[in-house]
């Protein structure tokens, strides 16, 4: 069957950003997302999850341009002050229209 390429953007962030990030995603053109919680540690040293509770892990399948926009947005607004990590990868989906 024919599949189409889309971008899967995964964001791991401290939970206090939950509402904000989900709003941002919608505005940047994501049509949906999946969210779960995760723990972890990184270079930020101090782990906010100790008092904020577990991090959130967001996955959203989007068009390439939206993926670009999301990463750029994260860099501009969150990377400097918050515990946020994000990555994008190419995936194949069966119903591309659902994510446009």
């Amino acid at each position: 069957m024919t599949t189409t390429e889309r971008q899967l953007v995964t964001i791991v962030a401290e939970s206090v950003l939950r509402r904000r990030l989900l709003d941002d995603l919608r505005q940047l053109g994501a049509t949906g997302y999946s969210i779960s919680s995760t723990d972890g540690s990184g270079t930020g040293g101090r782990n906010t999850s100790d008092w904020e509770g577990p991090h959130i892990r967001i996955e959203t399948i989007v068009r390439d341009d939206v993926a670009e926009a999301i990463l750029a947005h994260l860099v501009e607004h969150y990377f400097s002050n918050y515990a946020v990590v994000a990555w994008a990868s190419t995936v194949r989906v069966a119903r591309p229209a659902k994510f446009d």
Partner: protein
Amino acid sequence: MLSSAIVDNLLSAPVLAFVVAVLVTLVKGDIRLPDGLYPILSTYLLLAIGLKGGKGLADADLGDVWQPLLASIVLGAITPIVAYVSLRRLGRLGVIDSAAIAAHYGSVSAVTFTVVLAFLEATGEPTEGFLAGLLAVLEIVGIVVALAIAQAHLAREGGESSWGEALSEVLRGRSIVLLIAGLAIGLAAGPERLEPVDPLFVGLFPGLLTLFLIEMGTIAAQRVRDVREAGWRLVALALAIPLVNGLLGAVAGSLAGLGVGGTTVLATLAASASYIAAPAAVRIALPTANPGLYITASLGVTFPFNIVVGIPIYYAMAKGLT
């Protein structure tokens, strides 16, 4: 006298559990409660406190309540300023970090509130039922004042601060909402109708608080490393500010006509520092503030100090003043 009160407090199940959890964690023992239990317990505690307060309000008449309420609002305005000024002057911290920490000392710790209630219960000291109502007020006012300070400053600097959002974060946040929901239910139903739920919300309260403090101990212990980094000035202030604010609270309580129990509680609230509502609000409103400072001060120093030795001190203050 004071020392014996400290020992009594230290040997109470909740405080003992906290201390043991701190020690175990420091020797790298794994005593963390299972994930998922922490939010369940904090939800329970906030609801139970609210219900208790609601029942109290149902019995109390407005005449007894308005003065303590006023006192709380005043305290909510003064305590963060006390904190802010001392952090700027004595702590030599910047505006943002000072305001961020001040927000924590302006607000309150619901767990510290429950520990003082348990302490007074054990001591046999009666407390006004409506005190949990003051908790809700104090939790909010202090944060608002402190954020306003930062806000004013940032405005001058032309910096942007999303403090409207931060405020709604606090007001709609689970801790305030659960507290108020509990108050509403308790107030509407009244003591008799709530008897069927007492086994859960009254009978299990000390036990679940003890369980909760085990988790708090592991979290506080993880801050110890940070305490070293934070420097002696901040640590000293994290011990001094509660004592000053506690005294202010004791004075305010006695002036407001509260009994020894109620005055002790108000003093403890004034002395306590928030580590749930405030951090969340500050993280949004003042993202450049260093969490390493405000969490270490409130959770790593002030919280343990208050529940282990602070409470008996505030109790002594209350007895001296009323």
